[in-house]
């Protein structure tokens, strides 16, 4: 009898020993964020870059040559107040058509969420100077003299200035810093939370996140590129205005 039991036990072991993955839970699923871009409703991709064709609120005509930005800590909010934070970040690189889809590293429970949010940039806990090898390799860091950490966004291109010449602009957002006294830097937070609103997560959900690039130049500060176009990283007031304007740049698109 003991031999029969031993054979049965071994048989079970044979049948189960090579199963490497757990049977996936029925309630958890993969979720991806797809980053879409437009200029006041007109789709923008890297094929639209390098051509001066967009008008901002100030009627400056401009092109886009580079657009990269960082989002982090996607969070799912339940109506009961519970939150699920997906630690991690994604450097959206529109210029090179890379990371436009961010497959969240964690599985998410299927269901209805009262809000899905993420951080634009890094919060101060995550914004650790030199800590991320992939971001260092992408030359995404901020000089130590400006407090270090990482860029939040790099938007670059050219505009037609007030003497009718093409001129470059570099709309780079970082944590605002007043470096008037290099030995006593004064910071103001400019990362912000983007709230997308209610999202119903299905199996293998795909969530479109839209950025209206024009919003960065629109409201509440009508951006005049003739006045502010370069060396904005160390411009404390410019960083605060960028932060203000970015609040309305993102919205929820299609959810599948």
């Amino acid at each position: 009898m003991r031999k029969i039991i031993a054979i049965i036990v071994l048989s079970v072991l044979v049948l189960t020993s090579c199963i490497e993955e757990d049977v996936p839970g029925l309630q958890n699923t993969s979720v991806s964020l797809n980053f879409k871009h437009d200029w006041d409703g007109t789709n923008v991709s890297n094929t639209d870059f390098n051509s001066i064709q967009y008008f901002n609120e100030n009627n400056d005509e401009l092109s886009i040559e580079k657009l990269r930005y960082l989002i982090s800590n996607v969070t799912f909010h339940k109506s009961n107040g519970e939150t699920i934070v997906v630690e991690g970040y994604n450097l959206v690189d529109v210029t090179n058509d890379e990371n436009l889809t961010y497959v969240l590293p964690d599985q998410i429970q299927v269901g209805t969420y009262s809000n899905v949010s993420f951080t634009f940039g890094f919060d101060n806990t995550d914004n650790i100077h030199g800590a991320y090898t992939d971001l260092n390799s992408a030359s995404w860091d901020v000089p130590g003299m400006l407090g270090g950490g990482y860029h939040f966004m790099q938007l670059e291109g050219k505009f037609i200035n007030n003497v009718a010449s093409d001129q470059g602009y570099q709309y780079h957002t970082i944590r605002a810093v007043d470096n008037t006294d290099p030995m006593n830097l004064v910071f103001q937070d400019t990362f912000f939370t983007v709230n997308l609103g209610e999202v119903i997560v299905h199996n293998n959900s795909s969530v479109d996140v839209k950025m209206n690039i024009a919003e960065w130049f629109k409201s509440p500060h009508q951006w005049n590129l003739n006045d502010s176009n370069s060396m904005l990283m160390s411009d404390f007031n410019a960083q605060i205005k960028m932060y203000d304007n970015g609040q309305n740049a993102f919205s929820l698109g299609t959810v599948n």
Partner: protein
Amino acid sequence: MKRALGILIVIMVLSCSKDDTSVSKYVPTPLALEIPSLFEQKIISPVIPFNNPQTIQGVALGKKLFFDTILSADHSQSCASCHAPETAFTDASQFSGGIDGDFGNRNSMPIFNLAWNYDEKFFWDGRVFSLEHQALQPVENPIEMHNTWEQVVDDLQAHSEYPNLFQLAFGTTTISSELATKAIAQFERTLISGNSKFDKHLLGTATLTPQELNGFNVFMDETKGDCFHCHGSDNNPLWTDNVFHNNGLDAVFTDIGLGEVSGDPADNGKFKTPSLRNLLFTAPYMHDGRFNTIDEVINHYSEGLQNSPTIDPLMKKVAEGGVHITTQEKADLKAFLLTLSDHEFINNLAFQN
């Protein structure tokens, strides 16, 4: 009963085995890259193709090929003729002469840290993907080695040593251009430069002078040099973004660089950002070697910028010729740049013939 148990145990063992048991065959000895600790800390891993792993025998073969004039049609030039160790694997000429005395229109590029070229686009204009494919071109370029790979393979195959060296590196005496360039690429990936004074400063084993530190601040200051957006930083020891930019050299292009490769006029006048390591050894500078000194390069960015439709937005104040840093700032910046010189690299016997 014992027999049944034995069979079950054998089934258990075999059923979990993912690899077929194969007849033992020759495998060259793996060779890990010697990655500087700063690189380990700061940036992501180097690119090593899965189908061309680094091996002791492959690197040795690649080194021999790199320094062997057998690759050129008249057996007068090797890779090292234009990529010499003492000049950080470039040469001192504006344009390098080929075997027929012809000259191209591009400056020979230095060779180091190429395994960290993540996009794997090589040459000034990025026309070739992968280091292995890059190594194919100079041999057949009529203004360089002016040979054919068929001839090279014949010569190598008839050589007294090479068939055996290919056997050791790749397990076959049948030589091909694919295997030859794989070996050369393996050797080139070992050419790692990561031991400059500035590297030691970051590791706490060297101290920069006040002038060198001032120069680093000019380099990192967006309102002054603003070099870091394209040329790395204390967090990116490659000192290049390996991306293509129009850095304001010309108002009218005689060489359109990346634009020739991509066919996109928006890429006209763009060339790969070179690393700022080892500038002490790599003059002249720029894709066409137009600047003989580091001072000339700094002057270009300070007040010599030329406007054109594709100039990079990071080339600020182009209407005024540049950002106009002071004479003292220029001297400081140069002092900093020279701290990126890696004397150990150019004197490393492992990299020499």
